């Protein structure tokens, strides 16, 4: 029940806002605040009731949604199926927190010549919240895809209507790019669907048992055996989008396109490998991985602050989550075979993103590129196929969610005051804005991997995992380690240029008169930034807070990767 509430409370509230008259505009933000607060509470309840010793799905909810008998093609079965395990629970909690942060940071919209359109803004924001949650908890591939696609819509409008000068270009680019990736995912999804069966429903349909409740693991094995031996006719087979079944090789039809054993060749590659790459690219666009990242800097630069916070804090993580839950789970053979290439792409993202960040003059664009670099660690950790690496990757996603939210909020602080984000427009900001300087220093040091903050833990264990991995050559780790040096360089250089030295800015040449524009953090800004800083600190001091949750699931998950 909790998971459904998590999805549908925001969706229904979005509808509510859309239906309320414009005269209620002042209430919209309170509704959004209330809803996101409820989301945080719900996520907390989920965590409280979560058994960390179990590696399977918990809080499962299942309802039949679409069932269509298609004669010889078997039976179409699409379920409403949601649940959490150690992989998505941390991300659900993160999303709830970041969404709340996003609402508070939207509280006073930046003054522009455009109308604020509060109704549309908050309705879309809540729609985004609901779809993001749905995406993280859906365990039916079709349901996942539905949320995955639907997420684009609010994001497109949030960037395209409330963004900066080149918002239309940026939002179209974001939309088309992600949609191109979705098409690849869709193709593979259909292929998977045709290739796999739901052993439980098949057991009932084929008459092994009379009711779903009688299905035991033993029965499942018998059904799978019959199916593999061709003893079931195709009309008896129930096809499924259920991720639990798709992740088990024994459920793939012997003659099927994507059967691990059959391996037909398409375009010179085994079909499964091709499918793996297709789905990898689909999620790599989202994460993003170099060279599929160019939508990100544009989207971030144009997006308003709260949207950037959500984009970096939550949406990118769907890419990493997609790797774990879908690409790697359904195609462990591909993930193992291509591990060095995948980790190499991670290392490339780390270094390439870092070097690009070093070259930026726009603070926000720089931070966008740091996201590319930090997400490279996620891919590196996942590609390592080790407990350290995969746990570290999930941790890194949570950590980056917290720290990047902080970084984009901090960028928003100067932008709100001067509408100028160029690094060289400021010097010595520590003088008029000491609190701002301190919080920026915390966010920067946290992000550059200072022990004590969360960034360090994610980087440490993804690197350690990749170095320990039997799948990867050592030089990949050696190259990736350069990323932590680059991170120190771009963050400290930016800090030195913007915050130290004698105060000067393009907008207020001196501090002699009262600071009219460059005022220090407001209470609301501190209310956002300080808890995030503390969260990063707590996670950094005691990383087991996350690892306790992820450990069992990841430990079970990596067993599927075996050396051939």
């Amino acid at each position, binding site marked *: 029940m909790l998971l459904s509430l998590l999805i549908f409370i925001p969706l229904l509230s979005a509808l509510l806002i859309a239906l309320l008259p414009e005269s209620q505009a002042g209430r919209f933000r309170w509704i959004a605040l209330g809803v996101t607060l409820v989301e945080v509470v719900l996520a907390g309840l989920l965590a409280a009731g979560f058994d960390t010793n179990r590696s399977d799905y918990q809080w499962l909810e299942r309802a039949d949604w679409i069932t269509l008998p298609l004669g010889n093609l078997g039976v179409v079965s699409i379920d409403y199926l949601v649940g959490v395990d150690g992989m998505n629970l941390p991300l659900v909690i993160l999303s709830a927190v970041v969404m709340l942060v996003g609402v508070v940071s939207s509280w006073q919209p930046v003054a522009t010549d455009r109308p604020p359109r509060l109704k549309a803004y908050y309705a879309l924001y809540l729609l985004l919240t609901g779809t993001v949650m749905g995406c993280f908890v859906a365990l039916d591939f079709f349901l996942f895809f539905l949320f995955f696609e639907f997420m684009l819509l609010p994001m497109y409008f949030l960037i395209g209507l409330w963004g900066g000068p080149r918002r*239309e270009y940026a939002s179209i680019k974001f939309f088309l790019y992600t949609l191109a990736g979705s098409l690849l995912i869709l193709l593979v999804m259909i292929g998977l669907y045709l290739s796999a069966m739901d052993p439980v429903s098949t057991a009932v349909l084929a008459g092994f048992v009379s009711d779903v409740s009688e299905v035991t693991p033993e029965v499942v094995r018998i059904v799978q055996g019959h199916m593999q031996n061709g003893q079931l006719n195709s009309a008896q087979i129930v096809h499924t989008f259920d991720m639990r079944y798709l992740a088990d090789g024994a459920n793939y039809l012997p003659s099927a396109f994507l059967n691990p054993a059959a391996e037909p060749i398409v375009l010179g590659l085994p079909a499964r490998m091709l499918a793996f790459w297709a789905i990898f690219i689909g999620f790599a666009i989202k994460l993003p991985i170099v060279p599929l990242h160019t939508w990100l800097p544009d989207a971030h630069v144009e997006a308003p602050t709260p949207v950037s916070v959500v984009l970096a804090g939550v949406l990118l993580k769907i890419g990493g989550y997609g790797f774990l839950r879908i690409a790697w789970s359904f195609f462990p053979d591909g993930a193992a075979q291509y591990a060095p290439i995948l980790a190499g792409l991670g290392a490339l993202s780390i270094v390439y993103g870092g070097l690009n960040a070093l070259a930026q003059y726009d603070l926000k664009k720089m931070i966008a590129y740091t996201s590319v670099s930090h997400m490279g660690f996620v891919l590196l950790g996942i590609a390592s196929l080790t407990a350290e690496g995969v746990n570290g990757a999930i941790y890194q996603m949570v950590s980056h969610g917290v720290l990047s939210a902080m970084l984009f909020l901090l960028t928003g602080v100067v932008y709100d005051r001067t509408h100028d984000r160029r690094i060289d427009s400021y010097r010595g900001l520590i003088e008029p804005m000491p609190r701002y300087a301190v919080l920026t220093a915390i966010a920067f040091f946290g992000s550059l991997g200072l022990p004590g903050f969360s960034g360090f833990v994610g980087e440490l264990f993804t*690197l350690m995992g990749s170095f320990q991995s039997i799948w990867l050559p050592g030089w990949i780790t050696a190259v990736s380690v350069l990323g932590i*040096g680059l991170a*120190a360089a771009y963050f400290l250089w930016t800090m030195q240029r913007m915050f130290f030295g004698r105060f000067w800015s393009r907008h207020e040449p001196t501090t002699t008169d009262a600071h009219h524009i460059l005022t220090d953090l407001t209470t609301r800004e501190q209310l956002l930034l300080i808890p995030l800083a503390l969260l990063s600190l707590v996670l950094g001091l005691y990383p087991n807070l996350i690892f306790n949750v992820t450990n069992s699931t990841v430990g079970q998950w990596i067993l599927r990767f075996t050396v051939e």
Partner: protein
Amino acid sequence: MPVATPLLLLLLLPFAGALATSMASRRVAGGLAIGLTAIGLVTTGLLATNALAEPLTSQFDWATFGQTPFNLSFRLDSLGLLMLGLVHLVALLVQIYSLSYLHDEPRQPRYFAYLQLFVGAMLGIVLAGNLLVLYIFWELVGLASFLLIGFYTDRPSASKAAMKAFLMNRVGDMGFLFGIFLTYIWTGSLDLDLATAAGPLPAVAGLCLFMGCVGKSAQFPLLTWLPDAMEGPTPVSALLHAATMVAAGIFLLARIHPLLNPDALVVISLIGTITTLWGGYSALFQTDIKKVLAFSTVSQLGLMVAGMGTGNVGGAMFHLLTHAFFKAGLFLSAGAVIHAVHTQDMRQMGGLRRAMPVTFAVYAICTAALAGLPFFSGFLSKEALIGGAFGWAAQQGGLAGLIPVLLLLSSGLTALYMARQLRLVFFGDYRQSTVPLSAIHDADWLMRGPMLLLAGLSVFVWFSVNPFSAHHSWFWTIMPPTEEPTLIWLAPVSIGLVLLGGWLGFRLREPAHDKGYVLLSVEYGFLDTIYKYIVIDPLLKLAALLNRTDQRAVDGVVNGAGVGTVVLAHLMSLTDRFGVDGIVNGAAWLAGRTGQLLRSVQNGRVQSYITAAVVGLLLVLWWVL
């Protein structure tokens, strides 16, 4: 009380102190910090009186993966105890000194909070039970150093120096981290006891770990951050960049020494020797009083590293201990001089021995100890170090014999530049007009007390009863000495070299500042210039190039694909209108829709696109099914 409790209290005290101090008022902050450090010192003393039969240990669960725990583990053994005492004592003296030195500083609470943070981080390194914990606190020490070097935030040179220090340390730390991974792979443990029990690792692991030391202890080629670090307040230079923080690299080598194989040790001794000569030569013609001391620190650290490389862990740690006192004493006296004459340029000083007799006395004693004159502590530790190196070279044979000879020569060099500094600052005529000589006097007792104490600790008696030999020093109960041959000629030769160097330093006249060899010294071998041209500029150029590539090539493909499809759509639309005139078939309809869709890239109309996308999706579905 569990045995580990005092350990944790010791470690947490300074961190809690940093928090409390940063929030305290200006009047309380300094006293609070001093009180906390004093408590730490007393606790260390109490721990020391209960002789440690075996190390105290304690560990906490931090990150667990399956059956593999990564714990935060701490241990206290006799070496750690020695370092605890050293860190607390010097920190205490420096904090007392700072009360007066930074009397007019409005941001005193922040300053003392940073110092407390540093003490905590340094204690963490000392108490670390595994390499992970060591690395964690290692980085925190880097943070404290960054904050303290850049304490005067309005000085661009200070913030630049802070950044440089952190970045150069990061370069070393990248290697250190990689070395930790290698150690973990090869020994299966990060625990200092377990890993070191595995014996020497392949040279690459040892050298990667050593890179951490190269960064933190300012070894060649990462030594150029240390002279710049002098931008920090002078007491900070005394505590961090002379006595304790830079010594962390030496301490690291002492901890991981069993992991270093003979090849790695040779490289380490070579790096140490290069550093000691490089630092010594660079100190020769500096005009900034603190820069001379900074390069002297570089040189002495090189000596310690060379000692480690020659397998002489005890000797190197002994020199670390003696060096901490006399170098801190030198820095604090230099601070007193700067405080009085308001400049760091030695060409503006001269003849201060009468105006500042106490400072002069302290300076002279510490200089004698640094140069390695008998009756002072430096003599004892240098003898142990260089004697050990001769013993090692005899075993190695071949070119290894060069290393102890060069180390011996560097002690002559030390005497030379220190004598020159003493002459420029305290002898001759006073050469400044802005502050009259009559206005110059010794510092107050808050500053004088710590200086005198440190000078007192630079005398031989504290370390060995015999002023000419450290053979029966108490120190060897902590770290056993290496078996060294008794070299009767060593003491006379080294004393002779020191006297020669000292005499030259007093006698020689300053050469013209544009002479090649002077520039080579002042610019410390042009290392920074070399870095600018072979590292920094290429890196920034590469970054700019990649950024252009990113925008033009990588993104160009994306935009090109967009534009290409729009053009294609227009073409199809034309074909539709003129070629397939009148025939409305599905393909043309689709092309038309596609055209509109792709034009929407330009006009921002997404509705048409969504329609087309839905149609496209349906077509794909239809095709696949």
